[in-house]
């Protein structure tokens, strides 16, 4: 466990070390290159601000409206049929929409059912094997001119569906 924490903490400093060291060895004008890049970063941040406000407002409103609870309720018979524990459905539905909210739900599941219970394990695996799809799509496409995202949303949402089945299946096979 300690080794894992150590490795994770080391990742960033080591990457920065290699970037600076390789720049130094290749006679890059280090500080000048850094500031030139950083200025570009500032411009990018400015560019994504407005689209991000628009989309995050829509997602925030959707979350607050309670539409998600209605969906959980509506699909619970399907979950039972597919042998997916209903306890993880709120997490599965929130995961693509909000990172902080899904983390709160995951925490809640771990304390309610226990981290080492089957539900707790499924929640842990589901949480770690997926990303906040809507956030990623919003932030990334905010930086480009394209307004037609083509098949990217569909493919990503397929992933959010697959990850639910896969985490339940993997958990059942490995842990029970």
């Amino acid at each position: 466990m300690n080794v894992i924490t150590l490795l994770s903490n080391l990742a960033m400093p080591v990457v920065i070390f290699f970037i600076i060291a390789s720049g130094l060895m290749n006679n890059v004008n280090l500080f000048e290159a850094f500031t030139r890049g950083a200025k570009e970063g500032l411009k990018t941040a400015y560019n994504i601000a407005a689209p991000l406000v628009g989309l995050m407002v829509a997602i925030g409103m959707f979350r607050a409206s309670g539409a998600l609870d209605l969906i959980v309720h509506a699909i619970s018979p399907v979950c039972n049929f597919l042998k997916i524990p209903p306890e993880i459905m709120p997490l599965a539905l929130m995961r693509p929409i909000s990172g902080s909210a899904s983390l709160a739900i995951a925490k809640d599941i771990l304390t309610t059912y226990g981290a080492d219970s089957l539900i707790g394990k499924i929640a842990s695996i589901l949480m770690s094997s997926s990303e906040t799809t809507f956030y990623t799509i919003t932030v990334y496409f905010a930086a480009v001119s394209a307004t037609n995202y083509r098949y990217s949303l569909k493919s990503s949402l397929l992933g959010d569906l697959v990850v639910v089945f896969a985490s339940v299946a993997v958990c059942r096979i490995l842990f029970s």
Partner: protein
Amino acid sequence: MINYIWAFLILVSIVVSAFTGRIDQVANAAIKSSNEAITMVLTLCGAMCLWSGLMKIAEEGNLVKVLSKLLYPVTKRLFREIPQKSQAMGYIVMNIVANILGMGNAATPLGIKAMEELDKLNGKSARASCAMCTFVVLNTASIQLIPANMIALRMQAGSSNPSEIIVPVWITSFITLISVLLCAKIHEKMDS
């Protein structure tokens, strides 16, 4: 498309909240989310500058070139139309490395820069390029090697073996990753 999704989310929220009695919460959420978005941009701003700056050094040194070569067997299949030596590919490669290492606050700025470069290659078209779609889809799947946050959370919750999820997470992530990439690639084939 974004027009419809945007309108759908907002209109459905308002209609549903009228029935669930949460109309005031939805109104509050609209204001709160707009603040959150700006807070996020400001938070991201520092990381954006840091990683764009470091990336410039990595580009002008040899690091990006070396990493691009290492990842070439993967990237040439995923991003066929993007030249290996382009800036876009450099950012894509660094984004993938950051994601694998679990450096979320580096992966996002690098990914955004990658999208900007892909936008230039796409002639700033209103229609996303295949490379953009593949790249975004890749980033909505998890390729993190060590789920450090979740392990910490499990430890906090009193798990007797917090890190036992690592291998199951690899298997689950791999299954998910393969299915989303397959889906994207099949669409790509059908579109062309």
